């Protein structure tokens, strides 16, 4: 593209400064809003992803058909240590955690509640993440501690027990001692209110002693550094390797574990794209108006250009270039404003009035805006595409002008 043509096209844009600025501003606004929209969508998506995967990991290994099993023993992975070792070998940077859920009755004095006692390992990264969202009073679960238990505050209230109190766990139909006594070492304020009265945490060792020596209900693989859906490919690849390593077990990613959520997440992007398209169509109409009016005002000039030897295609190219330049400038301004705003929102923002609503779903009410480079490119590409499409009609009209008629034209 010769510089002279670019220069001419750019200068032509500013012959009607106000009109061009209005169109440029519209494109900039749409690009900026698109980036904010994608980043907020990304924040919501990643919040849901984060919430899901922090709880249970990106990958879970179960016995096949575990969802339909009613027998506690049938759902156990008995060679837990070997499976965990295989998982560590194939998981790359993933953190491997064994977990044993023990159904039973938790008793304090004359009060009792049916619970699924959660016995699991808590590597540092996972413990920190859990406690960041679920504040703790007292001491958390320690590896190898056979006697300590952490209760959700709602459950503790229901059992009328506090830190230091003693609770009994009765787990019939299991393979360990089937019963155990534990000291409440901590109370946790669970983010999700529905779990507040169901949360009871002990160490994996304590759970295995109680219900299933050397066995686990599942092996979880967590990738704490993966906080966004877009960065999830490493976990998918790890899942494939793990399935090959343990073909007798069922290896599932978070997508198979939560298909409803996946449907929501997968539908978000097309919806966001459609909304973006609508925004760009509206901005595009302003650009069409600007380019068309500019073309009408310059019909005589186009007649002269053609008289001098410019082909219709050349005139069409010039008008299209002007439109693309206008939208490019708008995209540049929109990106220059939008990205810093996204960076600001990436530090964390809340939606006023909806904190409780999100907490009721177990979601962190603080969102962290997130935009993928492909989404930035998408918004810019849309702007450029708008420039091309907006010029099609006026450029086509101009290219069909007859030089003599055009030179006689009065607007």
């Amino acid at each position, binding site marked *: 593209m*010769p*510089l002279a043509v670019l220069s001419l096209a750019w200068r032509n844009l500013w012959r009607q400064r106000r009109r061009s600025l209005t169109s440029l501003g519209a494109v900039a606004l749409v690009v900026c809003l698109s980036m904010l929209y994608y980043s907020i969508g990304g924040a919501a998506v990643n919040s849901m992803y984060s919430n899901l995967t922090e709880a249970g990991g990106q990958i879970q290994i179960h016995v096949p058909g575990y969802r339909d099993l009613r027998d506690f023993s049938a759902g156990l992975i008995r060679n837990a240590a070997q499976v965990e070792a295989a998982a560590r070998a194939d998981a790359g940077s993933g953190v491997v955690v064994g977990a044993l859920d023990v159904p039973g009755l938790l008793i304090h004095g004359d009060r009792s509640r049916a619970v699924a006692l959660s016995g699991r390992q808590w590597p540092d990264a996972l413990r920190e993440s859990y406690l960041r969202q679920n504040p703790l009073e007292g001491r958390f679960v320690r590896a190898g501690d056979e006697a300590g238990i952490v209760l959700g505050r709602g459950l503790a209230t229901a059992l009328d027990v506090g830190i230091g109190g003693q609770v009994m766990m009765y787990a019939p139909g299991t393979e360990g001692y089937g019963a155990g006594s534990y000291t409440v070492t901590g109370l946790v304020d669970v983010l999700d209110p529905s779990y507040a009265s169901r949360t009871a945490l002990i160490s994996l060792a304590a759970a295995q002693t109680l219900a299933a020596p050397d066995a686990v209900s599942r092996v979880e693989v967590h990738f704490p550094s993966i906080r966004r859906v877009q960065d999830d490919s490493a976990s998918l690849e790890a899942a494939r390797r793990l399935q090959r390593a343990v073909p007798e077990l069922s290896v599932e990613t978070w997508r198979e574990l939560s298909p409803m959520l996946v449907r929501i997440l997968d539908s978000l992007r097309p919806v966001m794209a459609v909304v973006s398209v609508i925004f760009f169509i509206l901005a595009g109409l302003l650009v069409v108006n600007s380019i068309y009016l500019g073309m009408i005002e310059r019909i005589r000039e186009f007649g002269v250009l053609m*008289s001098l*030897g410019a082909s*219709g295609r*050349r005139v069409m190219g010039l008008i299209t270039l002007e439109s693309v330049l206008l939208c490019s400038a708008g995209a540049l301004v929109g990106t220059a404003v939008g990205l810093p705003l996204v960076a600001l929102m990436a530090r964390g923002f809340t939606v006023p009035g909806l904190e409780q609503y999100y907490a009721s779903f177990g979601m962190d009410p603080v969102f962290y805006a997130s935009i993928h480079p492909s989404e930035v490119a998408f918004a810019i590409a849309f702007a450029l595409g708008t420039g091309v499409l907006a010029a099609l009609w006026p450029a086509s009209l101009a290219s069909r002008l007859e030089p003599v008629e055009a*030179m006689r034209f009065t607007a």
Partner: protein
Amino acid sequence: MSLYRIENLQKRYRTGEVETLALRGVDLTIEEGEFTAVAGPSGSGKSTLLHLMGALDTPSAGEVYLADTRIDRLGKREAARMRLENLGFVFQAYNLIPVLTALENAAFVLELQGVGRRERERRARQALDDLGMAEFAGRRPNQLSGGQQQRVAVARALAAEPKIILADEPTANLDSETGHALIELMRQLNRDHGVTFVFSTHDPRLLDSVDRIVRLEDGRVTGEETRDGVARGEA
């Protein structure tokens, strides 16, 4: 071989119910290196004749040959290419591109021709210099007088080194002194560069320095005169 050969050229315009015969069968030849004026009153068909010579319009009948190549039935793209490679135009209303400087305007046709930037600039500066406009190279049209703008327009035509420059009433928007000066300048260029000029005018005072005058009235050639004083009869 004549540079231009025009045979029985006719042009009708229809505006609603009214049909106007702008040219009624014009026969004309233009030789290379000539400095020719097409003279006649308003409405005589001068502009129509120049437009048809420049393949800017299509005749209703007749033929136009440029260097033995028929140009009156060219398609739009071929006509544009033909103009670009062979013709230069100067218009009554100057028609400079307002956002370009004088130098950039002078170089515009060269840019359309695909001439490289350095060569383009060299030829454009030379053309401006020939027209006495070198010191105004950096000015935009709105910073130039009418006469200066028209000289830049001539420079634009000249820089492209066409076979012929067609000028449609180039002095109509200028005062008489400036108009005279422009015609003299064009004459000088004709002598120095051998560029063929055909210009139209309704002002008889501008005919003193031309080689040949073709008189047009009511769409017909009514007479031709040459510098040697030989008058030719009605066509």
